[in-house]
């Protein structure tokens, strides 16, 4: 139904745009839940789940009991769902979307016969063509000869019909489970000592790292949930400078967080999970460069966890002639070092432009940071024009003529003059 039609029928209708990504996530979560009923569960279209429950119903006391159990649980979770159990995948799909229920083995056609042909998962054009022919129900189709049907409507219709009626096999192809990296531990008695929590963490880490190793992955972020006896929970989250699965090295990073946790009346459950992981192939042990890299990564991790990963930086060259933009400061944990070209015409230390009071061009005498300086030698100018395609408030003053000024007092400074907006500024210092 179009939105305008819906509004015409019900003027007070509240509408919201569909969030497909969130819906897919919710459906994936529901798929994990449905795993309690069957080993093979797959997502069926955008709004359905298909489970192969062969051999399962007796565990729940029969098909009806299984379906009731499922409906009750979904109801309790606040979800309104339709479910159907049928001998074939196509029949279950059709029935679930037209009232739901249970179709016993051998009575497929009786159950499906009354349903419209659109229930057969055929496209809109085929369904319309069928209704023009007067074939509106599945029962009308079932007894027609297959060959003329296929010739007229294409093999898709016949395939769907056969799949619904069981003449064509259609297995439930469940996608492989994405590995879940999480381990938990519940304790018979609550614990409160820091050393006890660390001991528990030790055991969890061993298990989690074994899981990670089995999948050739390393954790990039780890979360430890601690549940207290009074149902309060606290969380410790750490980041790692590079994918890692070495229990001892990860444990050291948790020490500070565990120290700060308030244990209250005691902690009775620990849960350790790795929300973010990255591929980490097994590597040869024993080489010195690897040790050095490990030690540096450990340092960056511990620094980043205390002062923030955005404050542990690395200099990366970037393609611009503007001095401020000729490099970027990138978080060291998320970048690789890159060599940068060296120019003798560039200062070693850069600072935001500071106005200097100067006389002469190039200045003979000037005052910078409360120092009276006299020029000994001036080299330049080097003209740098602003990048007009980028709006930069510090370059509003237009062109810059850069000079290397050596002073009689010692400091070697990088000064620039803005001819379009006369003034002298200091921006850097040479070694």
């Amino acid at each position, binding site marked *: 139904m179009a939105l305008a039609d819906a509004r015409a029928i019900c003027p007070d209708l509240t509408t919201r745009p569909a969030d497909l990504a969130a819906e897919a996530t919710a459906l994936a979560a529901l798929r994990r839940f449905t795993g309690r009923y069957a080993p093979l569960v797959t997502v069926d279209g955008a709004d359905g789940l298909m489970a192969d429950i062969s051999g399962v119903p007796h565990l729940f006391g029969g098909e009806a009991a299984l379906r009731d159990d499922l409906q009750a649980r979904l109801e309790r979770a606040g979800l309104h769902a339709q479910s159907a159990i049928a001998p074939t995948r196509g029949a279950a799909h059709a029935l679930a979307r037209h009232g739901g229920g249970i179709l016993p083995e051998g009575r497929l056609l009786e159950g499906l016969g009354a349903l419209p042909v659109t229930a057969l998962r055929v496209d809109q054009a085929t369904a319309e063509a069928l209704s023009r022919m007067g074939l509106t129900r599945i029962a009308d189709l079932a007894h027609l000869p297959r060959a003329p049907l296929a010739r007229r409507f294409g093999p898709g219709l016949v395939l769907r019909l056969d799949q619904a009626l069981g003449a064509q096999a259609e297995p439930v192809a469940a996608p492989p489970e994405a590995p879940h990296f999480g381990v938990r531990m519940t304790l018979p008695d609550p614990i409160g000592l820091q050393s006890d929590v660390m001991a528990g963490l030790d055991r969890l880490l061993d298990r989690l790292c074994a899981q990670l190793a089995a999948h050739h992955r390393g954790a990039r972020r780890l979360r430890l949930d601690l549940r207290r006896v009074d149902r309060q929970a606290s969380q410790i989250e750490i980041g790692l400078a590079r994918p890692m699965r070495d229990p001892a090295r990860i444990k050291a990073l948790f020490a500070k967080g565990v120290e700060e946790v308030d244990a209250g009346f005691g902690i009775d459950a620990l849960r350790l999970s790795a929300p973010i992981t990255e591929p980490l192939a097994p590597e040869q042990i024993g080489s010195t460069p690897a040790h*050095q890299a490990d030690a540096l990564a450990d340092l960056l991790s511990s620094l980043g966890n205390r002062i923030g990963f955005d404050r*542990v930086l690395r200099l990366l*060259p970037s393609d611009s002639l503007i001095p401020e933009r000729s490099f970027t400061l990138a978080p060291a944990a998320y970048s690789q070092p890159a*060599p*940068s070209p060296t120019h003798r015409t560039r200062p070693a*230390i850069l*600072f935001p432009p500071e106005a200097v009071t100067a006389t002469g061009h190039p200045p003979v005498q000037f005052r910078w940071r409360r120092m009276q300086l006299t020029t000994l030698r001036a080299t330049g100018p080097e003209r740098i024009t602003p990048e007009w395609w980028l709006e930069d408030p510090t370059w509003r003053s237009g062109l810059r003529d850069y000079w290397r000024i050596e002073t009689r007092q*010692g400091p070697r400074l990088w000064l620039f003059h803005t001819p379009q907006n006369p003034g002298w500024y200091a921006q850097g210092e040479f070694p």
Partner: protein
Amino acid sequence: MKTLLDPPACPPLGLRPMRVHEAGGRGRRSFALFQAARHPGPLVWITPAHLPEQPLPAGLPMGVAERLHLLRPVGETDLLWCIEEALRSPAVALVIAEPQQPLSLTAGRRLQLAAEAGRTTGLLLIQQDGGSAASETRWQCEPAPGPEDSTLHHWQLNRNKRGTNGDWMLHWDGTTAAFHLVSEAGKRHQPADPAR
């Protein structure tokens, strides 16, 4: 007399390894870059987040920019913690830091122990009169005016716990670790002042 307790000998203008040193004066950053070029391995430069000065990769000595890690902690406590943590790590070759307040003797001593534990060298760029009694050496560095095509530096070694003081005027152009001594001050070959 040479004993086993003596630290390994270090070349002139070098920093004794596994110790924390101090440099002051207007040329202290140049001195730090000079030392950075002479220490192969990862470098860590710790500056407070509010400091406007930052290194420009194109102007650094060759090979320094890609080895350099900049830490910008907020607050003096975090800064000192960062220095200690970096010194304690065996992976780092040289730790350069710019504390904004004078270090107490305890803090200075702590840093020395951390440097020993991590076999790392530290260099603190201090403000005027911001030295700590625990530092191994203290350098006073000033840029000096010189003739055409020269970059003169006047570096004085004012305090040396295990050796003599010194006074060097040298030409270092800031691109490589190579330098050229202009003159050697007479004091250099004399024994340490016995009154100390």
